[in-house]
């Protein structure tokens, strides 16, 4: 039961990366995603891979766990490689596979694009691995704050996210309860043709939705009774603070980017 209630894939630890401000992590990851596309030779890709590997190691999360998180995308990475292998027509023809010519440029291209893909996913997964969902919510709220000037409902968005996070376990427990109640009345969720199994979900979803709406109404009333009147004039308990470690992270990242621009062609 408890294990099924872990939200996201956050792994608690006290590593340097965990202790970084979530805003720092989000900004660096965003920039990394952009600058991966500037790498254009093996040297620059190697440099970025080195950086990503260094970061992954300093999270102190077991590599096997990180790799497990990447399993669903291995297929895509391999697929990308072969796609480029057959489609790119650059350089000399090296050999043929069942009549298809394989060019030397295609192998280089395939490897590079696959590495790019791998780096993107590895690096972005680092955010969810080392940051709690609520920290991410706080970071989004502060980072989007300038948009308030354009009447973008930043506070409301963040509150929505944090309330959803708070209710995920509650609704999961409820779904389990309902599915047991329905199973005891003879609904079969586990066997039979797919069509029947999909239909069996209906008596699970309907009560779940009804109760979710009821919860929403009661929660709104409770929030109002506790004095909630929108984001105006509200203070916040959870405070984010940029510390020295965040400046180190930015300096290291600037160094990495400089390296990238020296190494690329």
């Amino acid at each position, binding site marked *: 039961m408890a294990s099924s*209630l872990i939200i996201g894939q956050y792994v608690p630890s006290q590593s340097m990366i965990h202790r970084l401000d979530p805003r720092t992590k989000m900004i660096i990851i965003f920039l990394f995603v952009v600058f991966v596309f500037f790498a254009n030779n093996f040297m620059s890709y190697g440099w970025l891979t080195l950086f990503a590997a260094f970061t992954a190691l300093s999270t102190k999360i077991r590599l096997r766990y990180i790799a497990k998180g990447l399993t669903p995308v291995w297929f895509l990475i391999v697929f990308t490689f072969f796609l480029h292998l057959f489609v790119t027509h650059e350089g000399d023809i090296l050999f043929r596979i069942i009549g298809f010519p394989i060019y030397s440029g295609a192998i280089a291209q395939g490897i590079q694009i696959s590495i790019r893909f791998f780096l993107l996913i590895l690096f972005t997964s680092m955010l969810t691995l080392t940051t709690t969902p*609520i920290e991410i919510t706080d970071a989004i709220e502060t980072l989007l704050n300038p948009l308030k000037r354009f009447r973008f409902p930043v506070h409301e968005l963040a509150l929505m996210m*944090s*309330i959803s*996070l*708070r209710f995920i*376990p*509650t609704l999961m*427990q409820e779904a389990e309860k309902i599915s047991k109640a329905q199973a005891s009345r003879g609904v079969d969720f586990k066997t039979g043709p797919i069509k029947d199994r999909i239909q069996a979900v209906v008596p699970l979803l309907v009560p779940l939705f009804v109760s979710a709406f*009821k*919860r929403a109404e*009661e*929660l709104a*009333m*409770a*929030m*109002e*009774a*506790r*004095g*909630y*009147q929108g984001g105006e*004039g*509200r*203070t*916040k*308990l*959870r*405070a984010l603070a940029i510390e020295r470690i965040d400046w180190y992270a930015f300096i290291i990242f600037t160094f990495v980017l400089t390296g990238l621009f020296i190494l690329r062609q």
Partner: protein
Amino acid sequence: MNQTQIEFRNVSFRYADDQPWVLKDVSFTIRSDQSVAIIGHNGSGKSTIAKLINGLLFPDEGEIIVHGTSVNENTIWDVRKKVGMVFQNPDNQFVGTTVRDDVAFGLENRGIERIDMIQRIDSSLAAVRMKDYLLHEPHRLSGGQKQRVAIAGVLAIRPDVIILDEATAMLDPKGRQEILTTVNEVKQNHPLNLITITHDLNEIISADRVIVMNDGEVWLETKPRDLFTKEEALQSIGLDVPFSAKLANELKRLNIELERTPLDQKELLDALWTYHLKT
């Protein structure tokens, strides 16, 4: 201190024009030194009273005055600063992702400074003995613990009035006992006006005054001890007196008159074992 805290003046209310009246011409006053229980069976209008007091609903007729302020759309935010409310469902009033965040919610809404907030969270969680659960998520707490957090959230805003709107109705006996103990402790240590809304007569024992609601009207206003002698009349409006009072009433019928109607089992026992000494 001995002033009128809450006053209902000829209040009538219905949810829609084509629906029956939920409250019909209800008037009562609650003094600030009293703790009051409002009881009634389902649909008697008792929960509506709670929602009217802090402006979640507005009366169709009549007036409600809380601490000298008439409750209307312009004053609800002032009134809500004075009135804290704990609802029935432990899950559907827990807003924060952790205990600490949830207690902070009411403080954040009122723009309390962060340093002050941390201090208030600590002291109000200590008051309900939930300090060890500061960083727990709601799904790791029992129903009783969640309700204690809700009480802490209300205490943190330092209200004059706390309304418990069937706060124990969805709890198991252990959770219910937890809440009653907590509430009694809180009442002793804080100068508060407590309003308990319930259908369980076991929970009115510690109240100074009881308002019995039936069919949208005030059926009776009395003291708990006097109420327990009216067993048959209460049963006719769907309420049941506790076992100890029942036994005392039954003994009375056999001409064994106890000195006073016992409120709980301990009082009953004391009355019984000392009975012979007095006759």
